[in-house]
């Protein structure tokens, strides 16, 4: 009944690709996340029905791992690296400042749906800390001022894909 809202075609592929080979719920969810940018309730219900596994099995796994979103993220996912190298280089202030600017908490989306702010733990570019990511664009040696300026580029409605 919910299939009209979210296109379900392709989920079949996900199922045959992973479920029948090694039974990995993680892999199914990863493909779902990749496809929709989050884990839609409808998709879980669909997969649960097809596999005969209860939805709670899927949610048990989805809530365990940091990668999965249960609500749809904004148009631009902004990630502030909170790894150790970035921390000593002032990433806490970067996160504080952009969240003051956007008026959101960590993991929250702006009311206009343009930005979701997230924290990540190290993307491996520590020598260029602090690191700040908008969509797929990675910025190194960022300052709070530069971070705010950078965000302005994404404010004019120009989306940058999903995180």
């Amino acid at each position, binding site marked *: 009944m919910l299939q009209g809202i979210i296109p379900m075609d392709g989920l079949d592929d996900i199922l045959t690709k992973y479920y029948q080979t090694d039974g990995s719920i993680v892999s199914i969810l990863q493909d779902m996340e990749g496809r929709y940018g989050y884990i839609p309730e409808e998709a879980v219900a669909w997969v649960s029905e097809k596999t005969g596994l209860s939805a709670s099995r899927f949610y048990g796994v989805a809530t365990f791992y940091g990668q999965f979103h249960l609500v749809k993220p904004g148009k631009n996912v902004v990630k502030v690296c909170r790894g150790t190298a970035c921390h000593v280089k002032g990433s806490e202030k970067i996160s504080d400042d952009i969240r003051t600017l956007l008026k959101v908490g960590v993991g929250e989306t702006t009311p206009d749906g343009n930005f979701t702010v997230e924290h*990540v733990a190290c993307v491996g570019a*520590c020598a*260029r800390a602090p690191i700040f990511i908008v969509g797929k664009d990675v910025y190194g040696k960022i300052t709070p001022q530069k971070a705010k300026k950078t965000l302005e580029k994404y404010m004019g409605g120009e989306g940058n894909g999903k995180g």
Partner: protein
Amino acid sequence: MEKAKTEIIVGMGTCGITAGASDIYALAAEQAKAKGLSVKLSSTSCIGMCHSEVLVDVVTEGYARVTYGNVTTATMEEIIDSHVSGNVPVLKYTIAQMPSYGKTYDDIPVFEQLPYMNKQERVVLSNCGFIDPLSIENYISHGGYEALKKVIAAADPKAAIEIIKASGLRGRGGAGFPTGLKWEFCNKAQSDVKYIICNADEGDPGAFMDRSVLEGDPHAIIEGMLIAGYCIGASYGYVYCRAEYPLAISNLKVAISQAHEMGFLGDNVLNSGFKFNIKIKEGAGAFVCGEETALIASIEGLRGMPRAKPPFPAQKGLWGKPTVINNVETLANIPRIIVKGAEWFSAFGTEKSKGTKVFALAGKINRGGLIEIPMGITLREIIYDIGGGIPNDRAFKAVQTGGPSGGCLTAAMLDTPVDYENIAKAGSIVGSGGMIVMDEDDCMVNIARYFLEFTQSESCGKCTPCRIGTKRLYEILHRITEGKGRKGDLELLDELSEDIRAASLCGLGQTAPNPILSTLKNFRDEYAAHIEEKRCPAAVCKPLITFTIIEKSCTGCMACSRACPVNAITGEKKKPHFLAQELCIKCGSCFDVCKFKAVLKK
């Protein structure tokens, strides 16, 4: 004179791309075409000098390879016009030259003699930043897959295991368990199916050894896994890689398919009858999945929760079958040891810590990047000789090793030799190789709080001491940094830490208190200042600091009042400004923007 053939090599590791390497690559391609130059454009990965990205190398046939640093689009044009077109290096941007490629130029330092390089010993990193990671031919021409051929030709897995044992190689993932011994256990285990897993989860937030090796030399990992598989009798390998490393994953995918095409992977490896295939599993963002039993659960598609050991994975691992789990760096050592011998390897290092170790040097350091040193050189040599010391004339305060499981070492410990035993004696661990340098502006209570915030949120929740204990530790630390510390808090931290260490099920909980214990031991005064005097000596903890404007120094430039997000600063142009304490949210923006040092942070 005949026109020389020239190669331009752009550093396209994660750091390079972050610094803008893709634009430089595109520009080089476009210019070479527009100017009709016969150049070969290629890319390489992390050479370790991440502090100087974007890095571009130019090799004119018959001449030394020249490395340029901090390359921008403007400098790239100059390099093309002068060096690429006319074989005249642009000296103001050169970092080094490598004479092994040919005739040297005047006035460019030799790569191996740079202060950053001359104490390094590159074994694991021997290919990183030199070869094109996307070219299997390049790997083979640098001696790649020789070790595999040697092991298969000898057809004696036990003898190969003996070589690894004799080399003294210990696991580089953190625990330092002898690799050869682990393989021997698994070799002896009776089973029709066995697995080898490469642990590329690299959970230490602030470290990037494994990502650089995967990006820069993926075939070395494949070859290491093949040899491990051959030795223990496994036909399947998994690489469990964190999803935050997309470039590492894509380079590895390319390498795997190339290895298949060339017959190194597949159902009949090198026509020997040995079958070996590799699958990549992407992590899903849980630190605990670096722990081997949690990692296995995660590959099986479940919640990544550790289980009690024994049975060890070598007896009962993935899908209940005997499994060897090795770290990326451990595996990258294998082909080199097989080719050059156990004695060659064990000549590096100290009595019980053989070989070299890769470290990711970051934080308050002039030359941050990826380094590989023989075990046994001192922290001072790493931080000052290789890393070039602390920027902005600040004083060194501490170096953090071992990530969330490790500790902070002080200035008095700088002469500690870096090996498993000595770093442990000093109160930390070598860990997987993260090394974060901190200066006088870093608050050690804040650092301890930072790590506990991380571990308590990453605790899988299976056992109570870790799930609840780390949360309580975090709350106490948080309270102290808010100026609400109480008498007895330090004793409470000590006691609770010991309990969590003793009672937790897995390494995460058992080591989570380490950042507290080491800072409590080495920086107890700083904790006391927070609790007793409600003062943060490093001026980091917000509730304990105030910002004021020094009237004498304020020029009335208005930079601060414009920067303040809550309009707490008022004042007319060219007249001293005033900061209203009751409005201030202590964001520090005014302090950052004031060019006249007129904002005081205390």
